[in-house]
């Protein structure tokens, strides 16, 4: 009798049903194996995981955002390499960029399940009202102009959940990508070209502040949580909302009516390019998550089997069909019908580089610092130079 325990950040009911169903199917095929899921709320999950991993209550498989966190976990010896345990050729079904997030020194310690992208959700009713043509927004300058135009028309240009800070860090991260090109983060991590004090990061701060000087956010955005902001956007409180594709369903639920904006008033706008980047190549990069699962060192081979089962093409395709998320496995996004998901999937596929959220990618401490400086930049209480220096300091003292 083998038991596989899986720890997951709390999800909504549909997703939970989806996971349970997979577990049941797996149990049916494998006599003597039981799979049990546990769910923990988001913030608590992050702060509790390290200690949990040291305990006897360590899960076999747990939810992960990839990146530096995985590196740290590997260094502490909590994870086990799974290449050898996976079915032959399984790794090939998953795009290289996705696997990279779970790889440390060429060893695979987990699998990605889905990718997400951060985009400007747009309320077209409002942009139309202000006479803004979102199709025409190509560059950051265009975007700033559109913001000004919206403001002039008396429309709140952007809603943002400033209290949680991470919604603001998207701006800084994206701008850094655009300014510094795909490798800007890895170079900084390697300590090359001035690390996080590289000109690209300073430029990112500067560009961000060009935006915030327009006062584009709803009043009191800095005391607004992500959830509130997303509900407000769905209530039509602002024209743009820089947020992941995952927000599509939740923002509806959070709206006052429970309905949210009708699909025909909703559009997706990719984060615009900057005109004169510090380093080239950043214009087609995407920012988002490569969320998946890591396997702990105590896991039996059955755990990896289950992981592979969960990630098989059939289940991936099913998730796409239910619009739970955008599956990562090659060619499994084909059954999706939701236009927004399809669009995002195309983006990611076309992306020159998919950067994982910096607050996850760089580990908890540096990530939180980036969130902090993003909020401070937004409020104009910090200079771009200081912001970059603080990130570098946090990185040094990781």
């Amino acid at each position, binding site marked *: 009798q083998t038991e596989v325990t899986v720890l997951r950040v709390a999800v909504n009911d549909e997703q939970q049903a989806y996971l349970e169903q997979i577990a049941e199917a797996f149990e049916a095929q494998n006599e003597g194996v039981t799979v049990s899921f*546990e769910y923990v*709320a988001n913030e*608590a999950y992050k702060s509790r995981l390290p200690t949990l991993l040291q*305990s006897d*209550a360590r899960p076999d498989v747990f939810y992960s955002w990839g990146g530096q966190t995985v590196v740290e976990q590997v260094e502490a010896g909590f994870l086990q390499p799974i290449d050898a345990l996976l079915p032959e050729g399984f790794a090939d079904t998953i795009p290289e960029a996705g696997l990279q997030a779970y790889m440390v020194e060429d060893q695979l310690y987990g699998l990605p399940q889905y990718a997400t992208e951060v985009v400007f959700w747009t309320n077209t009713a409002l942009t139309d009202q202000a006479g803004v043509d979102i199709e025409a927004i190509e560059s950051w300058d265009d975007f700033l102009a559109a913001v000004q135009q919206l403001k002039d028309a008396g429309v709140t240009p952007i809603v943002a959940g400033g209290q949680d800070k991470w919604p603001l860090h998207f701006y800084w991260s994206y701008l850094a990508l655009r300014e510094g090109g795909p490798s800007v983060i890895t170079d900084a991590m390697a300590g090359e070209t001035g690390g996080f004090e590289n000109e690209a990061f300073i430029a990112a701060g500067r560009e961000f502040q060009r935006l915030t000087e327009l006062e584009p956010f709803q009043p009191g955005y800095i005391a607004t949580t992500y*959830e*509130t902001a997303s509900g407000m956007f769905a*209530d039509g409180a602002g024209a743009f909302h820089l947020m992941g594709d995952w927000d599509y369903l939740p923002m509806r639920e*959070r709206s*006052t009516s429970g309905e949210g904006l009708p699909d025909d008033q909703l559009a997706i706008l990719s984060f615009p390019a900057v005109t004169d980047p510090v380093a080239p190549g950043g214009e087609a990069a995407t920012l988002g998550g490569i969320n998946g699962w890591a396997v702990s060192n105590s896991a039996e081979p059955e755990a990896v089997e289950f992981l592979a089962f969960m990630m098989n093409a059939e289940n991936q395709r099913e998730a796409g069909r239910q619009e739970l998320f955008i599956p990562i496995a090659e060619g499994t996004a084909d059954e999706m019908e939701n236009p927004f998901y399809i669009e995002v999937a195309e983006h990611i596929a076309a992306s020159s580089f998919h950067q994982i959220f910096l607050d996850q990618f760089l580990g908890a401490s540096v990530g939180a610092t980036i969130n902090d400086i993003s909020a401070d930049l937004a409020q104009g209480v910090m200079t771009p130079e200081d912001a970059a220096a603080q990130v570098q300091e946090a990185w040094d003292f990781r």
Partner: protein
Amino acid sequence: MTRGHLARNLLRLAFLCIVASFVLAPMLATVLGGFKTNAEIRTNALGLPAIWNTQFYGSILSDPAFWRYLGNSLVISIGSVVLTLITGAAAAYVFAQIRFFGSRMLFSYVLLGLMFPFATAILPLFIKVRDMGLLDTWWAVILPQTAFSLSLAILLFRTFFAQLPRELFEAAYIDGCGYVRFFWRFTLPLSAPILATVGTFVFVQSWNNFLLPLVVLNSREVFTWPLGMMQFRGEYVTQWNLTLAFVTLTILPAIVFFLAAQKYIVAGLTGGAVKG
């Protein structure tokens, strides 16, 4: 009596009413908010609701999770109270009644606990709880909660026990009653007021504790109500009315409990705290 008296009294009452409204207004807004639609809250946060919508309260009351949260809180609070009273009273009895080598030092050692919050040691505390395999159990909250309550409890108990007439012990002693028996037969029954006081404080503290459960309870099955409330708040973040209804329903038991136990709270402040 005289006119000056009357005027002064009126002034006094007026001032008291102003402070009272400062105190009550937020709570009132909370209670009433639970009856309003979100739209109405936006335009009329303070006033009476136009229509008394009871479905928000209803939906929370009919949610089994809500009752589970309350149940968990209740079990944990009662567990903490009982454990604190028994272990704390026993130790305080020894400190008050028996002089032995090192007793003063041990007492000062225990009093150190008065001076720092959970937070200072929350992480090692978590590891301790985890190593004992208690995570996600009621004990994970009860034991540390008790340990952190012990300092104050022992201080108050000792003060009270020391005030019990010494002759009572001597009379019983001459009757042939030893120390341990005296503790059970006399000290505990005679200390009902201070037991009630300390019990009340520990209960309220445990009932309201947030940080400790936050760290040691992962499973929603064992969530206490403050965790449940924050969780709920996260889920229904723009629906202030639901949140307010939830808050109202969870603070009600505390208020009811307070009304029942206020005598002991006051007594504790007079007897223990002020003299201690």
